[in-house]
């Protein structure tokens, strides 16, 4: 996956966020989202290890050994930030106080099931906060490439990888398209770049309805 592809997916995800929302971002493509928000879109970032109001990466002279994000990377805290313990942090998540979670996935099923924490036959020893976020966040935005590095579709009829949660995905954004979950099924609502419906079908492992929205008119 080229950086351009990642950035295009993250840029489309950024358009889903509204000013004032509290968001939790996974590693990879989701982490590119803050840099791609519009100038007047002010999103507040939550990290599950106990900080609301995550700021940018610190300079070398500002490193603080007590201040990291959930990816264990050094961060800063913005003015007005708050710190809390892990039980409170996950109460925020589980209790529906996080407006949106943006995360990557290995597979999403056409009914919105998400698999994003383990590969079968490999180590299933790290789940972190993935399940809590998918279950608890008000909106779950999945950002991923349409196909895996070996060319397999990542939107599939049924997840074959271990599930994170059933029916967790609200929006799925790839380099080709946007799907939205409607009445328990993913619907293709938007084509990105020069993609065609046929291309999306070829890169998708299950049937879906098409209901293209004209975003410019919206």
């Amino acid at each position, binding site marked *: 996956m080229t950086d351009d592809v990642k950035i295009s997916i993250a840029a489309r995800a950024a358009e889903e966020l509204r000013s004032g929302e509290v968001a939790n971002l996974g590693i990879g493509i989701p982490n590119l989202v803050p840099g791609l928000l519009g100038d007047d879109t002010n999103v507040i970032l939550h990290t599950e290890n106990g900080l609301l109001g995550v700021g940018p990466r610190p300079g070398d002279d500002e490193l603080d050994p*007590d201040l990291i994000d959930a990816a264990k990377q050094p961060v800063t805290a913005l003015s007005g930030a708050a*710190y809390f313990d892990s039980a409170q942090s996950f109460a925020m998540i589980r209790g529906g106080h996080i407006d949106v979670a943006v995360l990557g996935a290995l597979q999403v099923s056409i009914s919105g099931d998400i698999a994003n924490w*383990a590969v079968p036959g490999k180590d299933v020893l790290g*789940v972190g906060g993935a399940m809590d976020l998918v279950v608890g966040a008000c909106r779950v935005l999945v950002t991923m490439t349409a196909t895996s590095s070996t060319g397999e579709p990542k939107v599939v009829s049924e997840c074959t990888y271990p599930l994170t*949660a059933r029916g967790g995905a609200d929006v799925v954004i790839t380099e080709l398209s946007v799907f939205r979950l409607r009445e328990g099924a993913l619907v293709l609502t938007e084509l990105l770049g020069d993609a065609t419906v046929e291309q999306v079908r070829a890169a998708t492992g299950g049937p879906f309805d098409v209901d293209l929205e004209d975003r410019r008119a919206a």
Partner: protein
Amino acid sequence: MAIASGPIEPEEAVSAIRSGDTVMVGGFGLVGAPLTLIDALVESSDADELTIVSNNIGEPGRGLGKLLRQGRIKRGISSYFTSNPEAVAAVNAGEIEATLVPQGTFAEAIRAAGAGIAGFLTPVGAGTLLAEGKEEHVVDGVPHLLERPIHADVALVYAARGDELGNLWYRRTARNFNPLMATAARVTIAEVREIVAAGELEPESIHTPHLYVDELVLSR
């Protein structure tokens, strides 16, 4: 119980840990981990067959990773073993038993233990591999798992500042699981970077009231 007689040496503190004990260790990775207490456990204690309750099993050769290399961990209860590839290898080789718990459930189960709650229902993990062996209850049409509290014999926690009574104040994201673990064990040992006189911490800013803390140790 509050602290009776000032800080003690880390070696003396960890002598409370016996073979076969369940030991909670604070920290998210190494941030907020009681590294002086872990070193004392590694260097001056021979307690083995330990069950470790910690979000991660340290990093290779760092923090709890040192105890892992000594082969003294029988079982780990964690949300993310993956941050220490040596822990993953030890699980795959059958050298340690692993119980993987979603991070929010892990935090809440520790909180529940400290708060006298015998179990709670959460939708997190229902219908996944991590539901194995857990009772499922459908509430308002939504499948939930019954999660039981996680108790320990000894908790090792870290705070930036403590007062001579054992009141604790945590700094920034070094707080994480520490205040929860301080409530959930029979014996809580707090490692602090700095000890101040009683009354020096603003009462409104105390994160862990002293009744939870049995011993204080200074970071080295």
